[in-house]
């Protein structure tokens, strides 16, 4: 009886030791969850989710304080990937949020008075200009967040939908309906 207990206990100890060693030896260095969520978010920094940027939203999701369906620029695809990452069910975009086609802001250079207000608003420093000088937006860096629209005192910024160009054109998903095949 005693020897059985000892043997079993011994085996348990040895195996436990091995497991513990393996856990340390083969530990996978993982991105913290926040980073992983942040990597899925589109980095538009638009704040439509109700947080002052993508990172704070990612932090809130990681803490379980925010839902995963609050990011319109990320779209359904983003929600799906987030759901996969967190092991929850995907859901439709939250109420009052709508996905818009990807756009960039353009400043009407004749109207711009050079007030620098939009520069301060832009989360990614995509606007260049100096006080009382006409401002312009670097298209490649604009994320389309629309944060520069409200501060403009002369309403000279407008959003332009990015058109599909030959070099950004994508092959379409081949659609054929099996169910209508005849």
């Amino acid at each position: 009886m005693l020897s059985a207990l000892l043997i079993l206990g011994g085996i348990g100890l040895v195996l436990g030791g091995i497991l513990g060693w393996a856990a340390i030896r083969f530990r996978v260095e993982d991105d913290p969850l926040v980073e992983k969520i942040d990597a899925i978010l589109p980095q538009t920094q638009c704040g439509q989710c109700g947080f002052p940027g993508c990172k704070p939203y990612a932090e809130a999701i990681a803490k379980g304080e925010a839902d995963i369906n609050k990011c319109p620029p990320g779209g359904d695809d983003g929600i799906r990937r987030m759901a996969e990452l967190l092991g929850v069910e995907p859901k439709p975009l939250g109420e009052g949020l709508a996905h818009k086609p990807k756009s960039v802001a353009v400043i009407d250079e004749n109207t711009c008075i050079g007030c620098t207000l939009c520069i301060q608003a832009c989360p990614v420093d995509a606007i260049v200009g100096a006080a009382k000088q006409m401002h312009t937006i670097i298209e490649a860096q604009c994320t389309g967040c629309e944060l520069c629209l409200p501060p403009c005192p002369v309403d000279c910024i407008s959003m332009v939908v990015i058109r599909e160009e030959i070099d950004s054109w994508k092959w379409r998903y081949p659609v054929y309906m099996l169910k209508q095949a005849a």
Partner: protein
Amino acid sequence: MIGSPHVVSERNSVRLVMAKVMAALVPATLAHAWFFGPGIWVSLLLCLLFGLFFEAFALGMRGYPLKPFLTDGSVLLTGWLLALSLPTLAPWWLYAVGMLFAVLVAKHLYGGLGQNLFNPAMVGYAVLIISFPTHMTQWPAPGDLAIHVPGLAEAFDLVFAGQGSISPDAYTSATPLDSLRTQLLNGKTAAEAMTQPPFGYFGGKGGEMVAVMVLLGGVLMLMNGVITWRIPAAFLGGIALTALVMQLIDPTRQAGPLFHLFSGAAMLGAFFIATDPVSASTTPRGQLIYGGLAGMLTVLIRVFGGYPDGVAFSVLLLNMAVPLIDTYTQPRVFGASAPRRPRV
């Protein structure tokens, strides 16, 4: 937008592939009728009709168009294979239940054509042999052993009205595989057992000739490019090798490779069942592993198991292993230094 290629090979369609496979089954079916009487026509007809019926039902339920899928021939092939694997002259509902499981459960519950994990005909067979073992072991005796061979009309009677006037003993006999098992249990050696009436030249009487015809059909398919050599060769090789090893270990009680190759559903399994593309392995090396293991398991189940034949179970077991086999046997891409390892 259809896109390239703008032409497709006219010699290739699902319908054509299925038709070729069925054509290759014709010699075996004729041999079956020749040796075991016209009962096969009744069971074949029933399997085909039940198959079409269940297929149409499932397609209708799932909202798919009937025409392209009913005419693709896949369900007919399933029915044909099941008919050849089941005893003839069994009650009609046996065929109905077999096809029900084959078509509704094994095929459509998994998503229909191309999606099934398991070979539908073998699922039908496995369900029947587990549920109705007595019916499944009443095989008609080959013509020259039977007291009476039922004709076509009698066969219809037997199938639909039950046994009625004729006693089953008049037309059934134990299959060679069964007979061998019983004899061995009675303490006879394999060599002694094989001198008994149900045995023929190298397999079972009649059955061996059907197997030869299956082999012929298989070779025709190989020449026609309908199947490739890997799975049949590995399957038969697996059977032969395992049987040989068994025989070497225990010569008195083991029947040897030739007997195993030409009895039961071994040939049918090698050329028509294990090669079912949907549920078989698809990589060159994987096909060898898949076929070889299925052949080996067949013999092991026959020798150590409680069921008369092992083909169905071994194929089903290997079907389950296909995703794993395929993942680890991906071929080397042109110009790649090592075979690919898709991460699972």
